[in-house]
C-alpha cells in the first residue's frame, strides 16, 4: 500500500474527495490484470492537484474511479462525505451530477444542442432538487457563457465553434451546478499552445474564484507547475507527492 497522495503538506482544508486503497483489475481472457494496486488520494476544498504519469500508468483509470464512472475492484471513494461506490446507482449518479464537474480533452459536447443547451444539461439531469426552472437555468448559462466571452455564440452548435470556444463551453457546463470537485482530463491536450493557455487560465481563475477542488490530469510540466500539489503515478501506484508554491 502506498500512502503517497494522502497530502503530505499537512493542509487542513476539508477533504471533499478521497480514495482509500483503490485497486482495479481487468479480466483479460482467463487472466486478471491489476492496473491499480491500492492508490490513495485526498483532495481538499480549493486545492489544485495535478496527476501525472506515463501512458499506461493507470492515471485515467484512477481518474474514472474518482469521477464515479468506473467501479474499483477494491477500496473506497469518499465524495461529499459518502462512500460513493457503496451507494445505489441512482444515488451515485446524483452525487456525480451535483458534486463533480468534468472537463474532457475532447470537450464532449452534444452536437445536437447549442452552447446554452449544452451548459444547461447537468441542470436538466439533476434530480431531487426544486423543479427545474428552464428560463432561470438558461439565464444562468447565458451569464456564464457571457463571462467566458461567448455571448455571440450562445445559439451556436459545437460544430460551429472553434476548439477554444468548445472548451470554454465545456468548462461552463462543468461549473453550471456549482460542484465541489472539478475533474479535468488533459483539458488543453487538444488545443494549440496559445488557446490552451487561455483555456487553462480561465479554468484556474474559476477554480480559485469558486474555491473548488481541482483534480487535473496532464502530461505537461508547465501545467503541473501551476498546481499546488503534483501526484506522480507509476505502475498503478502514487509514487510521488510533491507540494510546491504556485505562481498565480
Amino acid at each position, binding site marked *: 500500500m502506498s500512502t503517497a497522495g494522502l497530502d503530505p503538506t499537512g493542509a487542513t482544508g476539508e477533504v471533499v474527495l478521497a480514495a482509500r486503497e483503490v485497486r482495479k483489475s481487468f479480466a483479460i481472457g482467463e487472466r486478471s490484470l491489476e492496473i491499480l494496486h491500492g492508490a490513495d488520494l485526498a483532495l481538499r476544498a480549493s486545492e489544485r492537484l495535478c496527476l501525472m504519469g506515463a501512458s499506461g500508468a493507470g492515471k485515467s483509470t484512477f481518474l474514472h474511479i474518482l469521477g464515479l464512472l468506473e467501479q474499483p475492484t477494491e477500496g473506497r471513494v469518499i465524495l461529499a462525505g459518502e462512500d460513493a461506490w457503496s451507494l445505489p446507482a441512482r444515488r451515485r*449518479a446524483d452525487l456525480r451530477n451535483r458534486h463533480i464537474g468534468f472537463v*474532457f480533452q475532447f470537450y*464532449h459536447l*452534444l452536437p*445536437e444542442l447549442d452552447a446554452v443547451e449544452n451548459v444547461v*444539461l447537468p441542470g*436538466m439531469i*439533476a434530480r431531487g432538487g426544486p423543479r427545474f426552472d428552464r428560463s432561470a437555468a438558461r439565464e444562468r448559462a447565458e451569464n456564464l457563457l457571457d463571462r467566458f466571452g461567448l455571448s455571440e455564440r450562445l445559439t451556436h452548435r459545437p460544430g460551429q465553434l472553434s476548439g477554444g470556444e468548445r472548451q470554454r463551453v465545456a468548462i461552463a457546463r462543468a461549473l453550471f451546478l456549482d460542484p465541489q470537485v472539478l475533474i479535468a482530463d488533459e483539458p488543453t491536450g487538444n488545443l494549440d499552445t496559445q488557446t490552451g493557455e487561455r483555456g487553462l487560465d480561465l479554468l484556474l481563475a474559476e477554480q480559485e474564484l469558486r474555491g473548488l477542488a481541482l483534480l487535473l490530469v496532464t502530461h505537461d510540466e508547465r501545467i503541473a507547475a501551476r498546481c499546488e500539489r503534483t501526484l506522480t503515478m507509476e505502475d498503478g501506484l502514487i509514487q510521488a507527492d510533491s507540494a510546491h508554491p504556485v505562481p498565480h
Partner: protein
Amino acid sequence: MYRTFLSWRYIVARRTNWIGVVGITVGVGALILILSIMAGFLAESRKTLRGSLSDLIIEPFMIARHGGSTLPESPAPLLEYVRADPRVAAASAHLTWGGMIVHGNKLDDLIRQNPRTHEDGFVQLIGVDATDELATTDLGLALRRPSRLGTTLVDDPEDPFAPPPGTAPGPYAWIVVGEQLAYTHSLRRGSEINVVTVMPDDDGRVRDANRKFRVAGTFRSGENEVDKARIYIDRAELADFLGHRPEHIGGRADHFSQVLVRLVDYPRDGLQVKADLARDLFEAGLVRDPDAGEVKTWEDHRQNLLGAIENEKTLLGIMLSLVLIVAGFTVFAILSMLVTEKRRDIGILTALGATPAGIMGLYLMIGFWDALLGCIGGGVIGVVAAINIDPIEQALSRAFGYQIFNREVYLFDHIPSVVDPGGVAMIITGAFVCTLLFAAYPAWRAARLHPIDALRYE
C-alpha cells in the same frame, strides 16, 4: 426532463428518424383506411343485401321428393299463418323465375343481341303483390331513389304496375325494371320488351314461352346484381305467363316461390321467430322439413357473401398488421444505429449524472415520439382518406385515366367506408405498443453501455 428534451431534439435533428415515423404513418393510415372500407363494405352489403330481401325468407321445397306430401301451391295459408304472429310486421309472396330479353323475334336476334354491351340479356323475373311487397321490403325506396343513369322512375311508387298516365292502353302487362337493365337495353317508359323463357309443363317436358311487356319505369336498389337483371312484375301476371292454372278466386294464378317476412324487431326476435316458424310451419304442413333451412334469416341467405367480406376484413387486418411490424423493425434498426452512433453522447450523459434507467428512458422516448407522430399522422391521414375515399378514388381515376374502383364489378355505386372509432383506437394502441416494444431492445442496449467505453469512442 432531459429525456423529453433530448429525445425530441434527436427526432427533429436527425432525418433518419423520420423514416420510422413515415413507416408508422403509412402502416396506421393504411390499416385504418382499408379496415374502414371493409367495414363499409360489410355495412353497405348488409343494407343493400337486406334491402331487396326482408328479415326472414321462407322457401318451401315445392317439389316432393321420395313421395313426400304435396305442399299448397298458393302462398295464402302460409301468409295467413305468418301474419298471425304478433312479431311479424308484414309478409309478401314472391314468384321467381328466369328469362331473357329478346330484341326482335328470331333466334339470330337472341344470339347477337345487345351488341353495345355484349350482355347476355338474362333477367330475373320477380312476381310480387305490390302492396305486400312495398310493406315488406325496401322496394318502395328503390322506386323513389333518383336514377344515376337518367332513366325514368315509375309514376306512382305506391302502385308501380299501374299504366303510367298518358300512355295508350295496350294488351301487355306493365313491369318495373332495374335502372341498369333499362339503360343497357335502351328502355324508356312505355317501351315494349319481349321476354322469353322455358319451363316444364305438366307432363315434365320442357316448353318455351315468350311474352311482351311494357316498361312502367325503373328502380334503383344500389345493388348492381339486382339493378342490372331484375324485373318486377305482378305475381298473377308472371304466373299466367309461366302457364300456371288460375285456380283461385278471381281467376288469378296464385303460385309462389318464397315468402318474405318483415319483423317488428329483427335484431331482438329474428332468430327466435325463425326457429318458431320452422317448427310451427312444419307442424302445419306448410314446409317440408323443420331442419332443412326452408326458413332462413336474410343473413343466412347471404351468408356466403357476408362471410366472405368478414373473412376478407380479418385477413386484410392481419396482413396490414405486418406493415406495422415492418415499421417497428425500421424503428428498431434506426434506434440501434443511433445507439451505436451516439455511444459518446451516452458516456457524456452518464458523466453528467444520468442513470442507466435514464438513458434507457431517453431511447424509449425516441421510440415514443416515433410512435406518437406516426400514429397521429397515420390516424389523421387514415380517417380523412376513409371519409373521403369516394372523391379521392374519382380524382385518382381521372388523373390516371383508369377506373380504380369498378362499380360494375361491386355491388355498390360508391366506395363505402365506415370509420369505427373503437377500431381506430385499437389500431393506434397496437401501433404504439408495437413501436415501443421494438424500441425497448436498443434502449436496453444503450443503458448497458459502459460510460468509459462510450467516452473513449472518439
